[in-house]
């Protein structure tokens, strides 16, 4: 699973990155996590509100920090597929 966190510098972006790493670690999910803060790169995902959570190049969350449980559910969906 390839996870990307989109967002430059804001507090919420850091919060989402930390939360994502926590969830991945605690559930033993096999994944690479990349933080993307280059705006040109961010815009390729067509998001206008950061932070955003991208899994396998699909935008799953944008503009907010979800709960850890919500993130876990998203990851489970990809693990089953």
């Amino acid at each position, binding site marked *: 699973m390839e996870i990307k966190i989109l967002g430059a510098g*804001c507090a919420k972006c850091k919060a989402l990155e930390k939360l994502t790493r926590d969830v991945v670690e605690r559930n033993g999910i096999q994944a690479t996590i990349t933080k993307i803060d280059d*705006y*040109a790169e961010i815009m390729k995902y*067509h998001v206008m*509100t*950061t932070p955003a959570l991208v899994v396998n190049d699909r935008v799953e969350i944008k*503009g907010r920090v979800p709960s850890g449980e919500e993130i876990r559910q998203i990851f489970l969906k990809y693990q089953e597929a």
Partner: protein
Amino acid sequence: MNFVSRSNRNLILPLVLLPVWFLIYHFLKPVTDWFVDDILGMTAGTHLTETLRFFIFEVPKVLLLLTLIIFLVGIVRSFFSPEKTRKALEGKSLFTGNVMASMLGIVTPFCSCSAIPLFLGFVEAGIPIGVTFSFLIASPMINEVAVVLLFGMFGWKTAAIYVLSGLVIAITAGWIIGKLNLRHWVQDWVYEAQLGNQDSDDEKMKFADRIQYGYNAVREIVGKVWIYVVIGIAVGAGAHGYVPQDFMASLMGRSAWYSVPLSVIIGVPLYSNAAGIIPIVSVLIEKGASLGTALAFMMAVIGLSLPEMIILKKVLKLPFILTFAGIMAVGIMLVGFLFNAIM
């Protein structure tokens, strides 16, 4: 054993809490007086008593107002998104676009850290830069916390004046930026980055989800600003009782014409949120500052922030940012002079 589902609970809870809210709000004044005069047994009229009374009454009052309004605004905002706003603004002519963008700026949820992706997203959709700016100006300036606090501490007229002048500034400043045609001062890469159009995948929301959105807004915003409200009112309460009545009159009064530009110059580098600045502004006014000067100061602090300008550097060249800051400063000063003249 979970008889009441989460979505039902979301619908029922506001119905229970709303009457409680009104009861507390209604009896706040008599309860405060009873507490200060009878329980603490303080002598009415002394500096200390009135300072304490002001504090005990204002803090819960402002927090109650804040919670209710933020909750309602949260529900309203769940009907809007940057994607929908962008769609609504596509292909609008300059002036109409500026008016719509300014109004949508008030209701579209977005945090200041999203200013750059929003700017890029709007430009990509072919929305004129002037219209985009109307949106980006209105959104932080006319924020819900500012409006609630103005309403709570000065009444609805001042709140309305603030919203209207904010709208006029956002519309005009955006329109002027559009007319100036500053495209060559946008960083080159912005137009080079070719981005396809976005598929709008709007989530379908049930009403219970929208109420949840309201709760989240309260938790996020009130949870963040309450401490500024308490500190701001504490400072206000102290000054209320102890600072002489016309202390600010010579410095920020109506007769001192230079007070408006001075307030703007002091206000721009100051970066604070509405919650912290308004209780202090209320003291300035009480101690003789004129409304226009106080409004200008407030708008400069809330609507124009140095960190935001620095972030804009990523997409705009320096002359553009300076032009933008100049137009905003002039606009805010005009509002200040206008209200000093007519109020």
